[in-house]
């Protein structure tokens, strides 16, 4: 009875404390209750608990997890002044005002410099096959599709360089319709989208949209109103596109290669956590042509780990080949690896076992968030369907089909999914709905939760 009461009282603590120490606290209570029998000892126990609550409960709610930094010892050396100002004293109002002003200036200058180099950002791993590397697109995901925002009188001549006139818009819409009907894997849906775009054009819905980026956003939105497919995109590129879609013929671009070199293939963390748990934070699945060795080195590093955590919370996708390359380490026999970009072929099986890999029977965890997109969702989805990993975090973004890039003119292109692969696991993949984790926790708390889970799983082994 008293244990139940204490267990109930424990619920007053913040969830973080309960997750970390709830069980231990209950055990301590049990131990004391076992050892301290009789009226007075029991009364003392409850008094102790009462004082414990009054002291520890508020402090738990104000507890800010400390970063794991170098230990704070020993600073009390004779003859050294104690400089605790930054930590213990509240900032003066004047200091806050100056700090705010300086932040504002810094932010404005960042904004100004970002605006001036728009269109020349570091190339990143393409989210759909065949997008020209190094070209920054702008569509509905980066900009709201609100024609009124960018409205100008489209019937007049363009008011700014690069803005669209009616003839240009008509040509682009026609071009988009042709490409959709020719390439989109679902012919019926393609026809419906084409009809919708033609109807919008005829009704004059584009007449007020001269800003090319807003136009692209509106087109994307209107296609998706008919077919909610997040890999179906209509993109505007400020920099003129190369005459031919380079990535469909050539391999990776020098810019991409250089960016991967600078960013360590987007492998943010490759480390062993306490209790021999491997932790791999990768923010994309980079092209194996550039990053094969780095990926193999990372997986080899984890070879003797007792469990591996893949942190995909900031992973925006990338190459399905890399997804498969990493996945192969986790099996001792070839497994079918579902890829929405391709029909089933011989390539659809993992190259397992990887010689020398000892990871095939180790517990695997995948951290997900609402930002986990595309190829990262493929990795999560396949491991979940194969019951090879425990997913912890939030439901993923829900971007499944992978569009092939089609160039419409110097500044516009489309990502059009051309195949719908057969999914052996279920009728629906993660398109639009995302991959649901096995353990749902907020993305920010997912790492703590998964470490605890991994430890308890290892203990049970």
């Amino acid at each position, binding site marked *: 009875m008293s244990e139940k009461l204490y267990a109930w009282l424990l619920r007053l603590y913040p969830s973080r404390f309960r997750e970390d120490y709830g069980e231990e606290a209950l055990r301590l209570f049990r*131990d004391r209750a076992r050892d301290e029998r009789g009226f007075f000892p029991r009364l003392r126990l409850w008094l102790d608990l009462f004082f414990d609550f009054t002291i520890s409960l508020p402090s738990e709610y104000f507890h800010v997890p400390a970063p794991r930094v170098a230990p704070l010892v020993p600073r009390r050396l004779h003859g050294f002044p104690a400089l605790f100002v930054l930590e213990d004293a509240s900032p003066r109002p004047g200091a806050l005002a100056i700090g705010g002003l300086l932040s504002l200036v810094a932010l404005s200058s960042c904004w100004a410099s970002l605006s001036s180099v728009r269109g020349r950002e570091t190339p990143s791993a393409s989210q759909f096959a065949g997008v020209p590397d190094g070209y920054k697109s702008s569509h509905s995901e980066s900009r709201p599709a609100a024609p009124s925002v960018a409205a100008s009188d489209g019937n007049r001549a363009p008011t700014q360089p690069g803005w669209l006139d009616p003839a240009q818009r008509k040509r682009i819409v026609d071009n988009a319709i042709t490409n959709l009907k020719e390439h989109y894997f679902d012919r019926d849906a393609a026809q419906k989208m084409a009809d919708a775009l033609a109807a919008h054009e005829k009704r004059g819905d584009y007449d007020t949209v001269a800003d090319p980026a807003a136009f692209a956003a509106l087109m994307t939105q209107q296609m998706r109103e008919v077919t909610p497919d997040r890999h179906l995109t209509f993109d505007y590129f400020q920099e003129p596109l190369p005459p031919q879609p380079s990535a469909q013929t050539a391999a990776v671009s020098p810019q991409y290669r250089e960016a991967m070199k600078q960013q360590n293939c987007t492998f943010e963390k490759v480390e062993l956590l306490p209790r021999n748990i491997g932790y791999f934070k990768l923010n994309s699945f980079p092209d194996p042509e550039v990053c094969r060795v780095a990926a193999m080195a990372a997986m080899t590093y984890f070879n003797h780990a007792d469990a591996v955590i893949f942190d995909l919370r900031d992973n925006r996708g990338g190459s399905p080949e890399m997804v498969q390359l990493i996945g192969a380490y986790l099996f001792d026999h070839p497994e079918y690896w579902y890829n929405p970009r391709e029909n089933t072929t011989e390539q659809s099986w993992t190259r397992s076992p990887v010689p020398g890999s000892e990871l095939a029977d180790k517990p695997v965890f995948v951290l997900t968030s609402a930002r986990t997109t595309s190829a990262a969702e493929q990795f999560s989805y396949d491991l979940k369907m194969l019951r090879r990993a425990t997913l912890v975090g939030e439901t993923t973004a829900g971007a499944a089909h992978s569009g092939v890039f089609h160039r419409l003119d110097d500044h516009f292109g489309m990502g059009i999914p051309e195949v719908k692969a057969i999914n052996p696991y279920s009728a629906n993949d993660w398109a639009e709905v995302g991959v649901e984790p096995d353990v749902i926790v907020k993305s920010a708390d997912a790492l703590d939760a998964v470490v605890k889970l991994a430890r308890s799983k290892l203990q049970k082994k």
Partner: protein
Amino acid sequence: MPKRTLDPLPSAAFQILLALVGEDLHGYAIMRQVAEQTGNRIRLGPGTLYSSIRSLLENGLIEELDSQEDAGSDDERRRYYRLSSAGRKLARAEAQRLAEVLRVARAKKILRGRYV
């Protein structure tokens, strides 16, 4: 910037560090050891004990060991803690600081009679 919860070192945290000098202990054993070394004056409740343990862990002053079987507790696995070298240094520094306080108190003759 979060205030460091162990600066100055709270009494409970110091007692836990002292309890762990010489042996690795689990939570309940730490609580009993602290009660013993303070003449039953400090009986750490679970909330205070584990929030102190967490702060000590976060600051690298103690370490959590890989799980150990506790022979007396029907297959329950307990979490054991060990003093780190940083924790030992801090405990020593804190003891020296208290000794210094004691020296001043003695010099001021506020202890009256009993020699402490």
